């Protein structure tokens, strides 16, 4: 009976470990496919932390279970009479603190690449996203407008005035769409994120990007996609069946929070994107007087 409880702990903790490690080998239960250029960095850091935490999981819990196994109560046996050990305290303070510092500083670069405005690359594709209960509204610039903004944008610089003014004001030739992200393969995307009502969160699982849309704030976000997932069939965009990437809301925004879904269309090339933009422009402006 003494060993029983050590076994219970051992079995449960091992089962947990195996479930986590095992799901790595079953794609739908693991990180979704990543297509963003900063995604590998994020995933790499995830695995780095998996490595360290996995090591300490095994180490500490093995000590616990073995300790429970070996040191169950026996009449007549005496427990070791000790109040601790300075040497051990030093070791298990110093070693983890070095590891933790390493983990912490290993993150800094990736984090700044994703979120620091000053590190964001000069964009190829620009749009504006406004979240509201419960949809994502996209505003895409017409082709010439996009070209003007790109020309004014400097590498690593601030958002140029012409882009600021476009972000702030709707234009007659803008293309307005709901719940559809459009970009093309390899394009650096920069968008301005707004919310009209409550807090939402713009989340592309396949691009490893998440940013809250905060009412009252304009937040500039970037990502890209290194794989295409759609083609045009006449006027229609057809998304590959095995690459149906989604846009999700990740911040509680009321009753239909879990239905605030959008789709992601990454076109093959800039030309393919412009072709789509053209058809989309015709469709949106057709009703206009």
């Amino acid at each position, binding site marked *: 009976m003494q060993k029983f409880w050590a076994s219970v702990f051992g079995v449960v903790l091992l089962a947990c470990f195996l479930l986590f490690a095992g799901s790595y080998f079953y794609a739908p239960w693991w990180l979704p496919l990543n297509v963003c250029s900063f995604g590998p960095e994020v995933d790499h850091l*995830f695995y780095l932390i998996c490595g360290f935490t996995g090591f300490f999981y095994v180490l500490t819990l093995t000590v616990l279970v073995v300790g429970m196994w070996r040191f169950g*109560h026996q009449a007549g046996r005496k427990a070791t009479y000790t109040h601790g050990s300075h040497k051990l*305290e030093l070791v298990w303070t110093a070693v983890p603190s070095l590891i933790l510092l390493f983990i912490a500083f290993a993150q800094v670069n990736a984090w700044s690449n994703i979120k620091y405005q000053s590190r964001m690359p000069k964009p190829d594709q620009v749009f504006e996203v406004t979240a509201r209960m419960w949809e994502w509204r996209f505003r895409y610039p017409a082709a010439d407008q996009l070209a003007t903004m790109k020309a004014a944008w400097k590498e690593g610089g601030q958002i140029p005035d012409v882009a600021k003014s476009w972000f702030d004001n709707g234009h007659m030739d803008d293309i307005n769409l709901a719940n559809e992200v459009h970009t093309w393969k390899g394009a650096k995307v920069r968008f301005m994120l707004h919310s009209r*009502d*409550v807090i939402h969160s713009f989340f592309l699982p396949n691009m490893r990007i998440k940013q809250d849309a*905060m*009412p009252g704030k304009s937040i500039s976000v970037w990502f890209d996609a290194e794989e295409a997932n759609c083609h045009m069939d006449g006027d229609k965009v057809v998304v590959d069946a095995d690459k149906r990437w989604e846009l999700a809301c990740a911040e*509680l925004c009321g009753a239909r929070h879990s239905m605030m879904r959008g789709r992601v269309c990454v076109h093959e090339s800039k030309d393919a994107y412009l072709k789509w933009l053209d058809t989309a422009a015709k469709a949106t402006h057709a009703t206009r007087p």
Partner: protein
Amino acid sequence: MSADKSHTATTHEHPQLGFLRKYVFSDDHKVIGIQFLFTGIIMLFVGGILALGVRIQLGWPQSEIPIIGKWLWPGSLGHKMPPETYNMLFSMHASVMIFFVIIPLLTGAFGNFTIPLMIGAPDMAFPKLNMMSYWFMWPALAVMLSSFFVGGGAAAAGWTSYPTLANIAFTSPNSGTGQMLWLIGLLFVGVSSMMGSVNYVTTIINMRALGMTLFRMPMTIWAMFITAILQAMALPVLTVTLILQLLDKTLGTNFFLPNALPGGGGVQIGNYMTTPGGGQPLLWQHLFWFYSHPAVYIMILPAMGMVSDIISTFARKPLFGYRPMVYSIAGIAGLGFIVWGHHMFQSGMDPRLGTGFMIATIMIALPSAVKTFNWLGTVWGSNTQYTTPMLFALAFVAMFVIGGLSGIFMAATPVDVAIHDTYFIVAHLHYVLFMSSMMGIFGAIYFWFPKMFGRMMNETWGKVHFFLTFVFANGVFFPMHVIGVALHPRRYYDPTQFEFVQPLQPLNVFMSVCALCLGVTQLIFLTNFAISLFGGKKSGINPWHSNTLEWTAPSPPPHGNFLEPPIVYRGPYEYNSPEARDKDYLPQTEPPTPGVSVAHGH
């Protein structure tokens, strides 16, 4: 000295009190502690039922809810749970569990019960204040529970109540009266906690028995002491925050209501527009988390303290590294004040601030690691008795390892970009709050039950309760890590809406089944508790052969606690000390044997 003694003796001769003063409006810390305990256990079941509602919806979305669906929701909804109800269930589950179960059980029940007994005091420094602290829970309870029955239902904006969702009544039927009552309820809880913490700090500083130096205090007392300081410093911020949202909702102020519309309008919900006022939802997040992150430690530190005492007692071995244990609790509490921003990495807060908060947050894993290693050091070389409290305490250690390690993932900002607001965080917080704090609380209930009621809880059923809880709780919460890595967003009413989430549904079903079993398992605990209360074996003064002072008082201790004011000669963890020849423990009050040198006087 003799004058002093006679003085203490006279002040603590308590006249026979009537039933009402003795058991209801009592200013005896033990009765108040037990009142908190009963209230907490009742609310634990309320919160648990809310959680089961959440799990039923997640396991079987879009299906009719059996039995209760028929009379809760009309046929026009197909007897299905509406999304507003789902949001309400998880919001209130969290609010109830945090503010009415874990905090009141840890600080209210065990803080009250253990502090005077373990430091050798006849009662708290301010007994009347203590009584008030309990009775302020009642308006809080009344307000919170009644909010389920007001129009629109109870609050449904998450326990974090982020504006503008919580601020504006038009966003959801629950954000009207329900949200208002939520704010008022928490204000009452805050007042209650504040009175408690002031009392604890004062008592621990001023009322220790002769010889009870700070570094002879048991870990439970250290943890309660530091927690009380933490609470006293953080709570005013929560109070202010709640009042600001209340003002926004009632007087039309704009602390958290932004100008979100182009051209400077307020926010727009359907056809309703707020007036522009220039507030910031981010301000709420900062203020809220400035309290609520330290609150996370309020919800774990006392459990850490109690678990340390339980482990040392049943390991029959001194606690390994007593001073490092104290320092690491203080370290956690100190760092706990500068890490609140890690809840807001993706909120639009300046990302450079995120970098700073990340480093502080990752470093807070250090004192936690030191604590874990010291617990392991205590177990190693021990002579462990696997009693029910010990099993819960060891489970605390094991589960806290998992909860601590998973915290590093979210502290790492780039990784957090992916896993923020997914089930990974739900897994993490339940490993800390349920798997750790709740295990600690269960352990403490089994441990101090004999002192509270003079009777033992049934050990066999206690072990059955432990075994099933341990297995099913891991079954509920561990797979959440997996679906979190697959980036399943949290707070989703219907996870099947997203293609990348659909393959995770079998795990959701598995977790829901485990949750239902976990719920049923707690009935074993409840039955054991109720039956042992009246029919348990008589425990005697010191059933666990423990060293600390409460085990020298009668079980249950009378009003005034000790028959003689105790005198303390040594630290609390002298198990298997060579100084004690005939037994394997050495109570703090036992005078040193003449001729034997005191090796570890602390």
